[in-house]
């Protein structure tokens, strides 16, 4: 390579690395939407009648209402819990918080299965009445709200811990703690709970497993049934998902308007204050509320374990699950690594407000807030071609989908770390002769090793819990464990399905435990 070319490459190293990351992000996260609109737009115009005639419109409205109810209930439960966890001296804080938070890392479908073993007709606490309630809209809202409440709890707790102590102290001089919490802390932590609301609404709307299992018709289920069920009609599936594109854009606009880079303050691993508000005589009641939430979180998991043990399902599990756990782990680990790689470069660009970074950040957010059916159909539209079967017909397509949907985790988490690093730290390295790649890998990466590790773990766990995207296009023999569970639930032995659910729980717990152990804070 000639010297002038080498010098030019070095001068534009940052732009080149960013362009590569942008190309990767756009290929997995933007191209599916473009393909959907460009290739299938005409088909949609020709087939728009199914949207009205098949009752899909009323299903769409029903799904929107259910998602809104789930979001409201999760906020109502999670906000007070978040305050308790984030700022009070509630008893047994850590064990109760961990138990409460754990189900957020599991597919909600698995929790619905657990509630079925508790409140179904033949469940531990079940009767005809409880079963009827569970297999209804109320049951869907109950199961999903409890599954997603920990997301609100965690984000609100992090959000109020990030509020400037000065704001709180100024209010404490003139108001009671309860007023300080409701009038100062919660409004100041607005980006945290608005983010939680957007995430929960998005996940609820995309949710496929819970409504299908509880026999409640929803929009994603209608799309899914046209891709592989008795109503097989792929053209109609396309017609159904296209109207969701503006819906996704609306969610993106809400995210940018109310959260955006303010999420950095939520994700930022800044040092937390140690002082906590004394609950006084309310401490026993508040502690009981937190522990009740923790018990509600683990109750369905305990029911699954009971069913797996009592029916001998665990002994059979190995034969039924095949390579599914390995498919889950391997594809999720590769995807998490790619997510962190993209997140490092794009997150850096976003944190440092480089040109084009906001557009890339929006692309990552859009792929997450878009209903999984839209992204899934877009991925099928883009990748299901003879020349691309080496990806589409292998677990590679799982990786592509995971990276597309969860890239935002890497971009935002790593962006928040870098935004809190003084620019001088990078500039000093640049002045010392380090190019962009060297600054990224020798300064920023080691400096934030723990935070980047945390981002990898979070991405891994979100990929492991994914069902609603992977179920649309999983390759033959390459299905992840969540899909295996979902397909087996319809006609497999109950105790074996429960045992596979326990395997999923154990796998997630092991990953989180090992990750937590490796990333534990080291004293320096």
């Amino acid at each position, binding site marked *: 390579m000639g010297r002038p070319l080498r010098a030019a490459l070095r001068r534009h190293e940052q732009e080149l690395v960013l362009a590569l990351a942008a190309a990767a992000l756009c290929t997995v996260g933007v191209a599916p939407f473009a393909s959907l609109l460009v290739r299938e737009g005409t088909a949609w115009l020709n087939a728009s009648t199914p949207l009205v005639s098949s009752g899909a419109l009323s299903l769409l409205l029903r799904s929107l209402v259910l998602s809104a109810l789930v979001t409201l209930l999760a906020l109502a439960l999670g906000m007070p819990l978040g305050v308790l966890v984030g700022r009070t001296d509630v008893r047994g804080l850590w064990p109760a918080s961990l138990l409460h938070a754990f189900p957020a890392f599991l597919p909600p479908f698995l929790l619905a299965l657990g509630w079925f073993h508790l409140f179904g007709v033949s469940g531990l606490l079940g009767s005809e009445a409880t079963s009827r309630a569970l297999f209804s809209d109320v049951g869907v809202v109950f199961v999903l709200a409890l599954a997603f409440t920990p997301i609100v709890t965690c984000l609100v707790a992090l959000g109020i811990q990030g509020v400037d102590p000065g704001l709180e102290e100024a209010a404490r001089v003139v108001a009671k703690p309860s007023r300080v919490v409701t009038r100062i802390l919660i409004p100041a932590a607005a980006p945290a709970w608005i983010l939680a609301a957007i995430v929960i609404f998005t996940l609820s709307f995309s949710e496929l497993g819970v409504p299908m299992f509880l026999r409640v018709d929803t929009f994603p289920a209608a799309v899914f049934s046209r891709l592989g069920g008795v109503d097989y009609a792929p053209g109609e599936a396309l017609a159904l998902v296209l109207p969701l594109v503006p819906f996704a854009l609306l969610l993106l606009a809400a995210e940018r308007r109310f959260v955006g880079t303010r999420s950095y303050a939520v994700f930022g691993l800044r040092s937390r204050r140690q002082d906590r508000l004394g609950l006084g005589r309310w401490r026993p009641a508040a502690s009981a509320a937190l522990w009740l939430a923790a018990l509600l979180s683990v109750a369905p998991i305990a029911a699954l374990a009971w069913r797996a043990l009592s029916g001998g399902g665990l002994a059979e599990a190995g034969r039924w699950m095949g390579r599914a756990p390995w498919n889950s782990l391997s594809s999720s680990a590769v995807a998490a690594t790619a997510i962190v790689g993209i997140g490092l470069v794009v997150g850096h660009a976003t944190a440092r407000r480089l040109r084009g970074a906001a557009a890339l950040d929006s692309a990552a957010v859009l792929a997450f807030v878009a209903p999984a059916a839209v992204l899934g159909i877009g991925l099928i539209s883009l990748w299901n071609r003879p020349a691309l079967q080496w990806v589409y017909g292998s677990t590679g397509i799982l990786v592509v989908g995971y990276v597309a949907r969860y890239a935002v985790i890497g971009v935002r988490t790593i962006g928040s770390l870098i935004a809190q690093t003084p620019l001088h730290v990078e*500039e000093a390295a640049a002045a010392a*002769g380090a190019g962009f790649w060297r600054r990224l890998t020798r300064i920023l990466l080691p*400096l934030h090793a723990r935070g980047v590790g945390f981002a990898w773990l979070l991405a891994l766990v979100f990929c492991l819990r994914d069902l609603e995207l992977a179920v649309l296009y999983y390759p033959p023999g390459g299905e992840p464990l969540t899909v295996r569970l979902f397909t087996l639930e319809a006609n497999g032995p109950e105790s074996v399905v429960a045992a596979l659910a326990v395997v999923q729980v154990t796998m997630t717990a092991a990953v989180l435990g090992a990750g937590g152990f490796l990333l534990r804070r080291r004293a320096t």
Partner: protein
Amino acid sequence: MSTALALEGVTLTYRGQTVLDAVDLRVASGEVLALLGPSASGKTSVLRVALGFAVPRAGTVRLGERIVSRDGRLLVAPEDRGLAVVFQDLALWPHLTVEGNLGFGLAARGVPARERAERIAAMLGRVGLAGTERRFPGELSGGQRQRVAIARALVMEPRAVLLDEPLANVDVDLRRELLELLRELFRENGTTVIHVTHDLREAVAVAHRIAVIEAGRIVQQGSLGDLRRAPATPFVRALIEDLEDRASRVDCAERESGRRS
């Protein structure tokens, strides 16, 4: 004497506001230039333009004979300019040891490990930090951290060192000690320096020449005598008066203490 660093007609805008307005500044090889100015006058922007972290909308930046930025174009990346900087917050890399902080830039420029170790040891000895190689910045005192930052800049043997108010947050005794150290190091090595400060005494202590910047324009350049003889603006006059006022108070205090003893 040849020119080490020059800004010629440099205009820098940020979000529509003019931060530097046709700035002309020249530093000769081996010269120590103090750049003084009130808050938000553009002192740090001059350094950022020189380092390549900001690209001027108009004007030229030269290092020696080489043009490194011109009219909105970055022609030489910051890492290839051969400059070194000491920031006010020092920006020591907390995950690297003292040796790691000093060795980072040398490694980036391909200095062999053996030579690197020798240069680091020599520089640490020179700034009075021998034996701290394996320690992390968090394990050092404030004064030691300042010395590491200075050593990290000088170990690169840069064509110029840019100091962005590195002594702004240190106590009087430590400041005196560090000024003495800087003066010695610059004299020994013949280092070219731009020292940004808002304190005229600090400027006088190390600099051969003083440039004063106000509202993004260089309003006066010269020796302390030149500034004293014909202050160009009320700000320069205030600086001189403050310096003389302090000097006379110190003088009085010394006479007073002498009379008592």
